[in-house]
């Protein structure tokens, strides 16, 4: 479909044409000014109007003061990836206001704080000045709350200008504050009304943008990926969480802790069926998770790139010593300061290979809250089935932004606890060999410390052991064991979440991506077809190691574009390690690495240019 807006005949205001449900709003504020509530309420009220919507918070690594933007995209066809251009601006931050107005699409509109006097910047957009400070004083007698409450005024103004039902704003607002903060909700509601009233009396609608009721959202919910992943862990029966705070993964651990406290404390005894430790660093966090899993817990840690780097030695040990571990990596940009609060697929290659010696790790690539929920459960099952570290790679965009999602389905299958022998098994078998490939799938049997049997014990170490876990430095013991580990890795391919494949008839071109690249890729694929007549097959991988389906997909196309949100084409590099040369020759790389969520226009332009279109 084309990116051109849906244009209807003018109805009420001014006789101009309306752009209905297909535009982007950018709210520019300063970090720490409390705009988050107002932005979420605005986004949710559009969602409640039945219009597909996405919200992206672009925030700095800072507690207060630096510029922050929140983009809300409404789209009647359900495209919810980032759109670079925005049509409607709410300018609250004096520092960025000029640039914010300059970037508006021609014909766009700007609501702004009156003293900023932005009118002179350009003539091809509509201006709506609002005296926020004057309006907030009477509705918020307490001066120190005004900074926060002020933001709700723009929700009222926007409701009026865009035609959002005020009841939906009220519903979203009261939902946001919850039943316990009724007074705060009423205070903020007063500000919404003040904004709405001011707009009614003083602003004349001159722009074409409108929200009108649709029925596209069905039974959906709005949730962020971190919360969804946390819920997945709870329903995966996690028993031990060890973590160290790092943006953008902290909110995952915090959500998980609150779910555990709510759902996993024995009602009669008040005792917990879980343990949480905020460790001293990521080395300790992963070490504890591995120690716990060695002793039989469903254990996990969550982190971001810098944390995985610190964990790297332990992850190798988990591979060699065959100990389950779940690591959720909410990826962000690079090391140290600068862009740690921006998104990237920066750990695709590292997580698949991390550590020393020959190590390979399964990686799951969720793209949505639904998959964060389901794949978190897969991760625990796979870790115990295969006795190894399993990564789930999400990113800041998925983890920290709010997304529409289908209600999560309750897991039907029982927890997979893997090959663990009990004392009764040992009685029956008369013993066991820890690293022996009994079933031909490369996966050995283990026992847990504390098993009441004289034959249960074995000694765990890294590289040098025989199949009875005896110490050995023999070359054949080492290489035989490494071959079995490779076999185990191979077995895994059939147990991982399968790729999503959408072929197109006559497509000579294929596009492959993982995770959140999906939104831009799906939209771009439609743009390429509609604007250039270029049909593209589409494959979204959901796990590493890759399956045979990737081979088949490549075979079915002349060229395959591999989409990466990093500079070095990490997904493509991973394919290069595993695929046959003739298939590698067909791969082309498309990369974006600016730290913002990938957008469709960028992809479309690159692919069209590569194709000489």
């Amino acid at each position, binding site marked *: 479909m084309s990116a051109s807006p849906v244009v209807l005949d003018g109805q009420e205001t001014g006789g101009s044409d309306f752009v209905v449900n297909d535009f982007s709003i950018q709210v520019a504020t300063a970090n720490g000014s409390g705009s988050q509530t107002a932005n979420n309420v605005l986004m949710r009220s559009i969602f409640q109007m039945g219009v597909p919507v996405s919200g992206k918070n672009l925030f700095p690594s800072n507690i207060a003061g630096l510029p922050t933007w929140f983009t809300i995209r409404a789209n009647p066809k359900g495209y919810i990836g980032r759109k670079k251009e925005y049509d409607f601006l709410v300018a609250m931050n004096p520092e960025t206001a000029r640039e914010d107005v300059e970037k508006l699409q021609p014909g766009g509109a700007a609501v702004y704080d009156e003293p900023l006097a932005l009118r002179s910047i350009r003539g091809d957009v509509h201006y709506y000045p609002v005296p926020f400070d004057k309006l907030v004083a009477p509705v918020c007698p307490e001066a120190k709350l005004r900074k926060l409450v002020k933001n709700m005024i723009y929700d009222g103004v926007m409701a009026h200008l865009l035609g959002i039902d005020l009841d939906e704003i009220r519903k979203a607002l009261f939902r946001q504050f919850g039943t316990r903060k009724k007074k705060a909700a009423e205070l903020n509601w007063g500000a919404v009304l003040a904004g709405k009233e001011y707009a009614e009396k003083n602003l004349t609608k001159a722009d074409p943008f409108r929200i009108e009721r649709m029925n596209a959202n069905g039974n959906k*919910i709005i*949730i962020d990926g971190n919360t969804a992943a946390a*819920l997945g862990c*709870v*329903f*995966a*029966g996690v*028993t*031990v969480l*060890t973590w160290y705070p790092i943006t953008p993964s902290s909110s995952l651990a915090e959500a998980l802790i609150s*779910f555990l406290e709510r*759902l*996993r404390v024995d009602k009669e005894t*008040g*005792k*917990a*069926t*879980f*343990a949480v*430790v905020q*460790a*001293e660093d990521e*080395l*300790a*966090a*992963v*070490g*504890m*998770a*591995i*120690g*716990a*899993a*060695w*002793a*039989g*817990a*469903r*254990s996990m840690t969550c982190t971001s790139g810098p944390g995985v780097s610190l964990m790297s*030695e*332990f992850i190798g*040990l988990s591979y060699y*010593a065959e100990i389950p571990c779940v690591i959720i990596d909410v990826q962000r940009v690079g090391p140290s300061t600068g862009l740690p609060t921006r998104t990237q697929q920066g750990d695709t290659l590292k997580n698949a290979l991390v550590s020393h010696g020959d190590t390979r790790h399964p990686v799951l690539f969720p793209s949505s809250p639904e998959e964060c929920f389901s794949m978190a459960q897969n991760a625990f099952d796979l870790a115990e089935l295969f006795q190894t570290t399993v990564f789930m790679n999400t990113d800041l965009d998925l983890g920290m932004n709010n997304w529409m999602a289908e209600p*999560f389905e*309750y*897991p039907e299958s029982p*927890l997979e606890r893997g090959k663990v022998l009990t004392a009764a098994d040992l009685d029956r078998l008369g013993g066991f060999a820890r690293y022996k490939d009994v079933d031909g799938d490369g996966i050995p049997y283990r*026992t*847990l*410390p*504390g*098993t009441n*049997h*004289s034959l*249960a*014990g074995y*000694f*765990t170490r*890294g590289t040098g052991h025989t199949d009875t876990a005896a*110490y050995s430095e023999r070359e054949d013991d080492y290489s035989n064991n490494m071959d079995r580990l490779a076999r185990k890795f191979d077995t895994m391919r059939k147990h991982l979440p399968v790729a999503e494949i959408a072929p197109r008839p006559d497509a000579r071109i294929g596009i492959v991506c993982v995770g959140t690249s999906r939104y831009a890729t799906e939209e771009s694929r439609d743009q390429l077809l509609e604007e250039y007549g270029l049909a593209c097959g589409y494959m979204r991988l959901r796990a590493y190691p890759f399956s045979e389906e990737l081979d088949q997909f490549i075979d079915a196309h002349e060229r395959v574009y591999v989409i990466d949100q990093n500079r070095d084409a990490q997904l493509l590099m991973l394919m290069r390690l595993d695929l046959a040369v003739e298939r590698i020759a067909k791969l082309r790389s498309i990369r974006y690495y600016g730290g913002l969520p990938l957008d469709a226009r960028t992809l479309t332009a690159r692919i069209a240019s590569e194709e000489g279109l």
Partner: protein
Amino acid sequence: MSTTAAPPPKKTNRIGLDILPYRGLKTTLCAGCGHNAITERIIEACWEMGVQPWQVAKISGIGCSSKTPAYFLNQSHGFNGVHGRAPAIATGAILANQNLNCIVVSGDGDTASIGLGQFMHMLRRNIPLIYIIENNGVYGLTKGQFSATADVGAKLKTGMVNELTPVDCCIAAIELGASFVARSFSGDKRQLSVILKASLAHKGLSVIDVVSPCTTFNDHDGSTKSYAYMKDHEEPLHELGFVPSYEDIEVDFAEGSTQEVELHDGSRIFLKKLGRDYDPTDRLRAIGMLHAAAQTSEVLTGILYVDRSRPAFTELLNLVPEPLATLPQERTRPSAEDLAQIIDEFR
């Protein structure tokens, strides 16, 4: 009729086991290495106390010292982890199964150099386990470089002299929250034996720093961790006696000469004064005396500190009594109704 006499009955402990399951593989450490003597004491203490081998988890980092869990308690689960990180592994294991009897063996490099951070935080948490530091002042396994416990003025075989302040693991342990802290010498059989048995009776973190000479790299003149140096500089604080909980023995002692301390499981230790007054329940004085001893190059040994009131980390976590590791699905996966209710909150 057979004329051969029946073999003498095997000596068994209170849970009916002979010494064999408490032994391990043959040591591969150097002859005379202090670590071997400590291994022997662990074997004896566990056997005498009737520790269940299958309930023990032996965990270590990397180093000659960290190899030793392979040389005792053959039937127990063991884990030779990564350098300096045994505290994290052991903490995790205890979280998964708080009924485990966890014995960690580490070296001075493992604990005080690369692993100092984890060691400190383990102390703060008072994780219920026994943490033994086999302290020889050098990295044995990498051929004798200084570790962070090397004393000022200590000299390597190469002639290199340490000028940096040593880490005193016992002072750190007392200060940051270990609830049982002792120092001993691998050559002092009797004392080390009582300390180990007492630590098995203690609930909470026991830190036992054992000076354990490295015969190959740090047993020469100029070393402060050699057999000869310890012979001259060890100052036992008290003569130790131990009566386990399962033995009902009256101990008589002259008023004021001996202090009795009861441990969590009802076992009792008897500290008979030697020369100076020392009360192992007085935290500030314990730290003060260790600092003073360092000034005069004395190595104070014995039970330095006991605190029975400090809760172990597992108590703070308020865990169900069963191991988390083997809780059934009914107790770890909430119901479909729970999920439906949460989903509703996101509508």
